[in-house]
């Protein structure tokens, strides 16, 4: 479901724009609100969450799905860690559906999916390892991410597809941090499927403290 904006009196601590194909890593304190804005529409935002006090207690897509008993993420979804702990809750969602089974693109998986000519194209995993290194994290610490604004429908017969984006310019998703978090983002550079409308664009991050 989609929900709409509310008045806020909190102190803003974050307002950054992530260029197409760039990334971000930073701290989001417990209790604060964290918004991702799809500035131009149909932009996948690959996102990972870590417990700031135990980086091995990281986001887990499959634990999140099992706890909520449903595949898609929207308002009310609790993003869980690999230990089952709540990391963040989606409190507002003007898009209505977000993916967490599609993972991130990598140069190697691009070649598998789209052929040899895509092997040297920029990919999310390259951004993830570069930004993760700023906090001493390595590939071992990368797990299956959330794809905000991405639509990956599954069917009762076991089908899965990357469908055209359900998002549009100005749509946003807002989360409440349930503990101190480190958040790692790749603003997806993928050119070979509809997840970015074949035209990757910037997104905005906003944060308000408790």
């Amino acid at each position, binding site marked *: 479901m989609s929900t709409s904006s509310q008045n806020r009196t909190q102190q803003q601590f974050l307002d950054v724009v992530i260029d197409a194909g760039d990334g971000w890593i930073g701290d989001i304190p417990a209790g604060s609100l964290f918004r991702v804005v799809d500035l131009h529409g149909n932009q996948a935002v690959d996102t990972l969450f870590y417990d700031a006090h135990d980086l*091995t207690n990281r986001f*887990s*897509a*499959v*634990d999140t*799905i*099992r706890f909520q*008993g*449903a*595949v*898609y993420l*929207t308002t009310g979804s609790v993003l869980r860690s*690999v*230990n*089952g702990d709540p990391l963040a809750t989606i409190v507002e969602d003007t898009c209505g*559906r977000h993916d967490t*089974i*599609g*993972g*991130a693109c*990598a140069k*190697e*998986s691009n*070649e*598998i*999916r789209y*052929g040899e000519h895509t092997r040297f194209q920029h990919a999310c*995993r390259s951004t993830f390892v570069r930004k993760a290194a700023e906090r001493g994290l*390595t*590939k*071992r*610490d990368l*797990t*299956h991410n959330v794809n905000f604004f991405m639509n*990956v*429908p*599954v*069917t*009762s017969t*076991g*089908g*899965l*597809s*990357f469908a055209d984006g359900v998002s549009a310019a100005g749509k946003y998703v807002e989360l409440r941090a349930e503990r101190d978090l480190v958040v790692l983002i790749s603003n997806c550079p993928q050119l070979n499927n509809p997840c970015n409308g074949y035209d990757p664009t910037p997104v905005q991050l906003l944060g308000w403290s408790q």
Partner: protein
Amino acid sequence: MTRDLLYGVQVPGGSGWSILLRRQQALRLTAQGPDASVSMLVYAAADTTERLNVPDTLKAQMAAAVRAPMTLMSDMGKALLSVTASSLDWHDAITGHGLDADIAARFGGTTYQSARNEWRRSARTCLLEELRVHGLDNRDLHATVNWFTKIAPADDAAGSLRFVPGHAREGDFVELRAEVDVFVVLATSPHPLNPDAQWRPAPVRADVFAVDAPAADDAARQFRDESSRSLVMAERSCA
């Protein structure tokens, strides 16, 4: 066609096990009771930071479940295992595996002192023990494939999920061919979405065979271009 049984292991329900499976070997898992579940982690033996990537596996093969003749792909685009045969057309890979807290809440906690080897351990606890005795740890966890388990999505707005009781029966099997040398870790604890009010984890038979490398007309190679390319990447790494 080579198919020689090398050895077999009877894995009790609720236990963990691991195995180095070499290229040109296959692992056949056979359910020894209803609603068996085998939660599996897979690593490239040459570099365990290369591991099964369930999202890459599913999106490349346009599937929400694992079934023959899919390949199981690593994060580096390689086929680690191919599903060469199975009596079941659905193996879950999107709902993870159980934690000790689930079991304590539903069945009550146990200790070794109170229950000896009948203690109720989650798949997570069993997997972590096997990882740790091989120098790996919780940073190496990834989404498991849950062999024999079907958790079906509804065609509704939420993608609601439902455990399908009775999906696996005694004798159901899946056979996995290693495409590179792989380190396989598995646990036979019940899936946490299994609503069974009793704790009765089914044992699983694990048999290892010597087999041929995939031929030019192999089913996985013919399944999809993506599956075929993942086999080529595995072959290049062994060339």
